[in-house]
C-alpha cells in the first residue's frame, strides 16, 4: 500500500466547515452536503479558500455585528479593530478563538468544527424524509473529504445502514487502495473533478501533478467484479470546472474530452465559472492571480465548450456555500 498522499493533513482532526441542508446542486434530489476542511490541492481559483487549511478559522459576519467592541478587548494580539470593515487583521490573528467566545451575538464564528461521528450522522438523518421523497441524500464535499478516510468512511457506512443515498465530491487526489477499501463500498455517486489534462499545468495551478488523479479515475472506471459497466458509468460523474484561461481552453477541454471518452465515460458535468469570490479574497490580502477572469462566461462561450463534448453534458450552476469572510 502506498503512503497516503495527504498524510501531512490527516494528522489534524477532521473539521467540518459547513453542513448545507436542502442542497439542490450537489447530486440528485434534496441533499445535505458536508463540507470538510483541508485540501491537498491549492487551486488558484479555489472558491472556498478557507477550506484548504485543515485548522479552524474565524469568520466575521458584519450584518450580525452590533459593534460592542468586546472582541477588541478580548483579542490578546490586538488583531480586532472596529474601524476595520473586516474587523480582523488576518496577519496578526493567531486564530485563538477568544474573540468568538467574547462575541455576544454570532458576528464572529469559528469556521471548522469537529463533530463526533454519531452527532454528524444524527444531523444528517434529520432530513431523511426529504431525501426519500426527492431521491436525494448526503454529499461529502470540501475541501477534500478523502483527506479523512476513516472518519468519512464511518459516517458513510452509518448513512448506508440507514438506507441513505450517498455521494462524494472529490478532487481525486487520494491513495487508491485506501479509498477502494474504506470509501468506495459506501458511496453511490462519485463526483470527480477533472481540471487539467496537462500534468505540468496541473502542478503549476493546483500545486500537484494530475498523475495520481487520473490513475484514480481510471481505477474507478475500470472493470470491477461487483459492478456492471453501466453502473460504474452511473456512479462516476466527472466534473470539469470552467476557469477562463486556465481550464476553459479549447485545447484543455478537447484533451479532457478525449481522455474521458477513452475511459468509457458517458456523462459529465461542466461547472461554469463564478467570479464573485475574487473580491472577497482580495479584501483579505489574498493573492489573486491577475490572470483570473472577473466575468461570468457568456452563453456563447458556454455553448462552445459544451460542443467539445460529444456526450450528454449537464451544466451546473455554481456558487454555493459562500461564507461572508474567512
Amino acid at each position, binding site marked *: 500500500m502506498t503512503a497516503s498522499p495527504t498524510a501531512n493533513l490527516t494528522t489534524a482532526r477532521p473539521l467540518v466547515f459547513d453542513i448545507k441542508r*436542502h*442542497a439542490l446542486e450537489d447530486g440528485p434530489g*434534496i441533499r445535505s452536503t458536508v463540507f470538510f476542511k483541508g485540501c491537498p490541492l491549492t487551486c488558484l481559483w479555489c472558491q472556498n479558500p478557507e477550506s484548504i487549511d485543515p485548522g479552524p478559522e474565524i469568520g466575521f459576519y458584519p*450584518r*450580525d455585528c*452590533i459593534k460592542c467592541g468586546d472582541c477588541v478587548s478580548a483579542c490578546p494580539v490586538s488583531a480586532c479593530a472596529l474601524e476595520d470593515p473586516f474587523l480582523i487583521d488576518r496577519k496578526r490573528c493567531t486564530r485563538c478563538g477568544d474573540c468568538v467566545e467574547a462575541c455576544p*451575538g454570532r458576528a464572529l464564528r469559528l469556521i471548522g468544527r469537529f463533530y463526533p461521528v454519531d452527532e454528524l450522522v444524527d444531523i444528517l438523518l434529520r432530513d431523511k424524509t*426529504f431525501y426519500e421523497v*426527492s431521491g436525494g441524500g448526503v454529499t461529502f464535499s470540501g475541501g477534500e473529504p478523502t483527506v479523512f478516510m476513516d472518519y468519512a468512511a464511518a459516517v458513510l457506512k452509518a448513512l448506508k445502514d440507514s438506507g441513505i443515498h450517498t455521494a462524494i465530491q472529490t478532487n481525486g487526489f487520494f491513495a487508491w487502495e485506501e479509498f477502494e477499501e474504506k470509501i468506495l463500498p459506501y458511496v453511490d455517486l462519485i463526483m470527480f473533478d477533472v481540471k487539467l489534462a496537462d500534468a505540468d499545468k496541473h502542478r503549476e495551478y493546483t500545486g500537484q501533478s494530475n498523475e495520481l488523479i487520473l490513475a484514480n479515475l481510471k481505477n474507478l472506471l475500470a472493470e470491477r467484479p461487483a459492478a456492471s459497466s453501466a453502473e460504474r458509468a452511473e456512479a462516476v460523474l466527472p466534473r470539469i470546472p470552467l476557469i477562463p484561461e486556465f481550464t476553459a481552453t479549447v485545447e484543455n477541454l478537447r484533451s479532457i474530452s478525449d481522455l474521458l471518452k477513452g475511459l468509457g465515460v458517458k456523462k459529465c458535468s461542466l461547472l461554469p465559472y463564478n467570479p464573485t469570490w475574487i473580491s472577497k479574497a482580495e479584501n483579505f490580502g489574498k493573492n489573486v492571480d491577475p490572470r483570473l477572469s472577473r466575468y461570468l462566461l457568456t452563453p456563447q462561450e458556454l455553448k462552445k465548450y459544451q460542443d467539445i463534448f460529444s456526450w450528454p453534458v449537464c451544466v451546473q450552476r455554481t456558487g454555493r456555500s459562500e461564507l461572508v469572510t474567512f
Partner: protein
Amino acid sequence: MELPRNITHYMKHPDNPADSPELRAGKLYKYVMENKRPVITDENLLAGTTTARTIGVVLYPDFMALSIWPELETISRRKKNPFGITRAEIDELNFDIFPYWLDRTIQEVARKDNGNPLCQRIMERIVFYIATKVYSISHTVPNYAMVVERGLLDIIREARERELSPGSSKEDRAKKDFYQAVQLSLNGIISYAANLSREADRLAAKEVDTKRRQELLEMAEVCKRVPAERPRTFREALNAIWICKIALHQENANVALSLGRLDQVLYPFYAEDIKRGMTLAEAVELIGCFWLKIADHVPLSPETGEELFGGSGSNQAVTLGGVDIKGADAVNDLTYVVLKATELLRLRDPNVNARYYPQVSKKEYLDRLCEVNINTGATPCFHNDASAVEALSGQGVSLEHARDYSSVGCVEPSSGGRTYGHTGCILMNLTSALEMALWGGKHRLTEDEQIGPKTKPAVAMTSFAEFKKAMETQLGWLIDQVVTLNNNLGRAHQEIHPTPMLSAFMEGCMEKGKDVISGGATYNSSGAAMIGLADVVDSVTAIQEFVFDKKKFTMAEIISAINADWSVPYKKLQAMVKASPEKFGTDSRMARANADWLIGFLHDTFQGKENYRGGKYTVGYWTMTNHAGFGALTGALPSGRMKNEPFASGITPVSGSAPVLTSCLNFVARLDHTRIADGHALNLKYTPSTTTMSRFADTVEAFFKMGGLQVQFNIIDRKTLEDARKYPEKYPDLFVRVSGYTAYFKDLNPHMQQEIITRAEYDLGTGEEQKYG
C-alpha cells in the same frame, strides 16, 4: 342598507315577542328573504346578490354595525377601505335603525344578562383576546350537498312531517317551533328565487343583445327551479348553492362561512353536463362566475378595527381533492377545473384549500397544486389528510366523517355540513399571558391594574419550573375568562338570534329538532385560535436558557431590557438572545420541549371546558391579521423582539430565527397535531424561481410525511412587496397569503404589510432563509 332596514322594520312592527326565539327568527328571515330585492348583475351567469348592489357592504344591526356609528359621517372619506354612503342613508341609520338596537345587540344582551362580567370587560382592553360571536356565528360549512341532492322543498316537506308528528310536551313544542322556523325561512328563500326568476324574465324582455337575452331567459328558468327543486345541471347546482349562500349571509355576517368540498358536491352535475356536451371552457366560466359572486360583499369595520385587524376578506374556504369517505383518492376532473379557474382569476375569495393524502393522492396532482401556487403567488394552501383525519378522530368524529373534512375559514379542519364548530370563535393573544407571568398578573398596557391572578413576580423566581407554573396560572385564568365570554355570547345568540336557515342546511338539526346554536348539529365544538405562539416559545426558551440554565443574566436584567425596548445598554443582551440557536423552528430540543409543553397545556385546558352546546373547545394556531394587530400593541419581549413589531403568524417561526428550511418544516411537522384540532397555518415565503418547481412539491410531500398538518406559501420576493407598499397603484391585484387566507396586499393595514415583508422567506434553491434587512 336593505338588510338593516328590513330587519329593523320587521322587529319594530310585525315581530311578536311572545313567540319562541326560533319562531321569531323563522318569521323574520321569511320576511327578509321575501322582501329582498332581486338583483341580476351584468356579465354573470348566476343570479342573485348578497346586497342590493353588485358589490356592497352588509350591515348587521343586531351584531356590530353600530360600531361604525361614530364614523358614519366620515367613512366615505377615510383612507383605508372607504365606504360610499348617502346623506339619506346616514340619517336613516342614525335616526331610525341604530337607535332600535341600542340594547338589543348580541354584545349588549350578553353584557346585560351577565351583569357586565369581567370576561367581557377584559376583551374591551383589546390586548388579551377577542370573542367573535359579537360579530356573528359563522366559521362553519353548511351542507350544500343537501341543497343540490334534495332541493329545499324536500327539506320543507320533512320539516312539515316532523312538525305534524304527535307530541305536545314542552320539548316537543320547542321542536315544532324549530320545524316551523325552518319551513318559514326556506319558503322565504324560494320566494326570493322566484323574484329573481321574474326579474330575469323582465330584463330579458328588454334586452337587445341576443346572447345576453338568451342567458337571462336561461337564468329565469334556473331560478324557477332551484333551489326549490333538485337541480338538473351544473349551472343550476351552482346557482342553487349561491342563492342559499345569499340567504345565509342575511342571517349571519359572513365571517368564514365556508363552501366545503365543492369538487365533490358538484361533480355529478359536472360529469352529467360534460356528457351532454358542456365544454371545459364553459365549466371554467361557471366556476369563475361563482368565484366573482361569492366576493360580492365586503365587511365594514370601524377605523380602529381597520388599523389593527383590517384587510381580511370573508375567508370563505373552498376545499378540493383529498380522499373520499372510504379513504380512496377523490381528486376528479372538476378538481382540476376549479384549479384552472383559480389560476386564471387570481381572486382573494374563495380561499382555496387543497387536500393531499401522501401515498394515496397522485404526485401529478401535487405538482399541479404547486404550479397553481407558483402562478398565482399565493394559492392554494396545502392540507395533509393523514394528519387532519387523525386530529378530527381524536375529537370523536367518526372515521368516515373525518375523511370528509373540509377547511373552514383559514385552515380549520371540520367535517363539513354536519359540524357546528365555530372554529374561530376565540382569538387569544398568548403574549398577554406571558406578560402577566412576568409581572405577577399585570400587563404593561393596562399598567397598575391587577388583571390576572397574582402570581409571584418573575424577578423573585428561582427556577424555570416556577416560571412555567406562573405561565400556566395566567393562561388558565385567561382561558377561563374567554371561555366564559364565548359561552355567554352563545347563550345570547340562543336567546335572540337562532339561525333557522343555517340549521336547515346542517346535518343533525332536523333529527334533533334543534337550531345549530342550541346544539342541533351532529358535531358540536368551539375553536380557539392562539396568537403569538413562536414569540412566546422563543421568549420562554430565552428565559430558560439565559436566566436559569446558563445564568448569563438575571430575570431583573431581562425585564429591564424589555422595558427599555432593548435599547442601549441592552443591545448586547439582545444580540445574545437573538443569536441563540434555541428557537422555535430549528433543531433546538429546548425550544421543542417548550413548544410541546405550551401546546399540550393549551389543548388540555381548553378540552377541559364545555361550550354552551355541550361540545368541547379545540385549539388552533392561525392568526388572520391579528398577529400584526396584537403585535402593534405589545411591548418588547424576552425573545429579543422589539416593541410594536408584528408577532410571527400562525405556527410560523419568528422571521430570522429559523434559518434552515428543512429544520423549520421538521420542527412544525413533529408537533402533536392531535392537540391542534382547530388547525394551524404554517406561512412560508419562497423566493420565486422556475428551476425549483419539482423541489417545491418535494418539500410539501416531506412535510406531510413527517406529520405536518397544513402549509401555505407566498411565492414572491421582498423587493416586489416593498415596491407594492410604496406604489400600491402599480399592484392593484397583488394578492398574498396572510395567515390562512388570501388578501389584496393594498388593503392590508401597515402592520400587516410589514409582517408579510419581513416574514421568513426561503430560497428553494438553497433552502436558506433570506434574512430581512
